[in-house]
């Protein structure tokens, strides 16, 4: 099983004021990803060129262009992606051609499918694979929140090529979700993710000028936080109970947050993580505090509040 992924993040940054250096760094980080190609838009390429040449790479570089003439103006790419002018019967996706410098067709890209929700794309995808064979890449769009699922459906049906962007920038499928799903299902080695995903995430945040949502699947800072007693207890016994994959795969760590759902084992585990030892009575005090303070207040007991609670209690007793 093999998927051929195109990273199209750098085609989605035309409206952002990105430092050229970051674009260069992005290409270096993409070296670590299991992607076959990186696509760039002309404005992004112009900006990058002001800083450095495109670094030599095992990856293919593809320039997204509007007219065949652009190919002459920007030589040196492995491929050029341009809109297919010929009429197409397929109303669900726009067709693009990816050609090499000698005008030979590398593959077609079909971009769209956003009105499909996953398995409802199955007959359509089967027909496309029949028609194009391996020479077709799909770039599902996320208008109805199903782009990742469509990409996965394509791969599970035997499709090969997918175009996606990190965190779904520009309305594409989320590359990190598609890749992780693909590796989980095929049992591959995801070890690139530990270093490469946090680096790519940080660069993306710098390029777009704001942090990603903390709950964003695969990338969010808080996705491995746990609070409820039943889960903390379970995680202590066996982490895989409440984790879809080990946090290290994506460069994250487990983190216990104390809140109203935390039980005794969560309180003890948190104390242990902070290098504190609690008496039984102290555990009960913390639990009572969590149920009242957290339910009426901000929702979590910070580490500082936790320290103070234990400390004050020691002083009293």
């Amino acid at each position, binding site marked *: 099983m093999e998927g051929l992924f195109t990273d199209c993040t750098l085609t989605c940054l035309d409206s952002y004021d990105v430092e050229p250096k970051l674009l260069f760094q992005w290409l270096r980080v993409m070296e670590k990803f299991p992607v076959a190609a990186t696509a760039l838009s002309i404005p992004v390429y112009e900006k990058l060129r002001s800083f450095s040449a495109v670094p030599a790479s095992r990856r293919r570089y593809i320039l997204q262009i509007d007219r065949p003439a652009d190919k002459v103006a920007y030589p040196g790419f492995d491929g050029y992606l341009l809109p297919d002018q010929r009429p197409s019967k397929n109303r669900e996706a726009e067709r693009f051609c990816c050609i090499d410098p000698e005008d030979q067709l590398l593959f077609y890209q079909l971009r769209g499918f956003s*009105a499909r*929700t*996953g*398995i409802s794309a199955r007959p359509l995808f089967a027909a496309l694979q029949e028609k194009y064979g391996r020479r077709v890449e799909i770039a599902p769009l996320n208008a109805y929140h*199903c782009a990742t699922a469509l990409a*996965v459906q394509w791969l599970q049906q035997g499709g090969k090529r997918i175009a996606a962007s990190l965190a779904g920038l520009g309305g594409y499928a989320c590359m990190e979700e598609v890749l992780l799903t693909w590796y989980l299902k095929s049992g591959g080695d995801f070890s690139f993710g530990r270093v490469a995903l946090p680096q790519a995430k940080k660069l993306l945040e710098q390029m777009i000028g704001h942090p990603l949502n903390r*709950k964003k699947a695969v990338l969010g800072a808080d996705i491995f936080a746990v609070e409820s007693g039943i889960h903390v207890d*379970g995680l202590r016994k066996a982490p895989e109970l409440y984790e879809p994959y080990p946090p290290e795969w994506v460069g994250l760590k487990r983190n216990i947050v104390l809140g109203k759902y935390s039980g005794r084992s969560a309180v003890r585990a948190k104390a242990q993580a902070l290098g504190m030892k609690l008496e039984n009575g102290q555990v009960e005090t913390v639990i009572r505090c969590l149920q009242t303070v957290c339910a009426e207040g901000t929702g979590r007991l910070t580490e500082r509040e936790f320290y103070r609670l234990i400390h004050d209690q020691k002083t009293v007793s």
Partner: protein
Amino acid sequence: MKKNAFHIVDTTLRDGEQSPGLALSSRNKMILAQRLDALGVYEIEGGIPAMGALEQEAVKGMSLHCRRARIAAWNRLSLQDIEASIACSPDIVHISVPVSDLQIQKKLQKDRDWIEQSVRVCIAYARERGYVVTAGFEDASRADMNFMIGLGRQLKEQGVSYLRFADTVGILTPQETYDKIKTLRDASAMDIEFHAHNDLGMAVANSIAAVQAGARYIDTTLGGVGERAGNCSLVEFLEAVSLDYESPFRIEAVQEAAALASKLFGLQDGRDVSL
């Protein structure tokens, strides 16, 4: 357009609030419950009475003040939990049943026989007291299908109203969701509820695959709040499901409710904003 294909079970106030760092005061819980009631949600998962007096008050209050939505109380597989729920007079007693061997052995340190017997005892206890009971298969996506089918048939005999299939760690794809739900539903004859998590970014697509496979109840939260990468967002689900199914919800009203939840949770943005 297909009609009347699904009911919404909203779990913002249970699985959503269980998200680390999120909590609501009893008053805010009631505000959200009434808003969900007004939207036309079929069932509201109101909380876990076994947690204590505050939670019990909240569930009691919802049962009194919500006019259309059924209020469900969540329970572990334990008579004490169920007693605490019954004291709140909910419309539905929901009993969660770990079904994967991973959960049964490593979390509970029990075996499948123990699960079957406990399920029998707990459900009988709630049914004898006249309650509508639903059962939730926890970690169903990693569980043995034949074991779930056997348990499903047992639920049917005991008069359980519907069976929740929980993708507890959010690892299913739409194709897998469809196949599993269809198999379980056909073989057990139980009505199915589907509970998604968004760990691989497919909570919405999986929930729609579940509807396509015949699941009649779909679990959602406002803004997609929930553990880890969250649950299935009600707004996102309704937007996508409306492509193929008739939906009685007014999307603007649901968006307003999600914005209110976000505000009450103290979030700057809901999870719906992925960037």
